[in-house]
């Protein structure tokens, strides 16, 4: 019998993998993928709560998260392209324009 706890465990482990990936990688695009992984983990948790509580709200929330994720990726990758023009690299250790 699969319970809510199984889904929450899966979702949290995926979120943790995303966190670790965000903190240990150097490639800015893999950082983006880690963020997507974390967003997906949250979506899974929302949908599983929606099922186990028999409410639609979780699914509607996921729809809005999709909107925000699409906007985030579009703007983020545009920033990355613009940064690549200046720095000629996607290594996040070289993105130190705002550091002083």
């Amino acid at each position, binding site marked *: 019998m699969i319970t*809510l706890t199984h889904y929450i465990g*899966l979702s949290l482990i995926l979120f943790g993998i995303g966190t670790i990936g965000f*903190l240990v990688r*150097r490639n800015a695009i893999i950082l983006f993928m880690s963020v997507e992984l974390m967003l997906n983990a949250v979506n899974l948790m929302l949908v599983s709560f929606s099922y186990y509580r*028999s409410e639609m709200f979780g699914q*509607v929330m996921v729809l809005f998260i999709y909107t925000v994720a699409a906007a985030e990726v579009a703007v983020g990758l545009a920033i990355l392209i613009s940064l690549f023009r200046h720095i000629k690299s996607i290594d996040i250790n070289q993105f130190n324009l705002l550091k002083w």
Partner: protein
Amino acid sequence: MAIGDLYFWIFAGLALLAGIRVITSKEAIYSALWLLTVFISLSALYIHLRAPMIAIFQVTIYAGAILVLIIFVLTLLTRPDDKMGEFQHNVSFRGFGALTGILSTGLMLVMITGITEIVKKAPVPADLGSTGSFAKYLLNNYLIHFEIASVLLLAALICAIYIAKKDKKAVTQ
């Protein structure tokens, strides 16, 4: 073991394996392909959770749009000579990252298992997550939010074009 349980374990295991490969692959393009595996297996889990609409959105938006955008940018920005598949060089930084991920996950697991005792499994109505009930619920209760989301997408579109546009002054210099 019931067939539903087997279904869950297969796709949960696939999602976890692919998730680990996303952050450990040396080549970024392999990371992207493993991320596709994560999206597809999560979509299968959404079907198990009686959310077919969300499963379809998952495939069309994430696997169809976002991942394609990521792969496009990846092919644009990757040069053959740079070693971008590597982890952070600083060992203490890597250790700190792994520790943060593990600790925060463990903490959230401990916190949230207390919550699940409150949530009792209610009888699931037959039309939960069907297209009709999803649309009715969304447009009856969250119409304003839905419209604001479309404005947000438009703003992001204009913003992305403006940021990625070539700076004419920089070109002439």
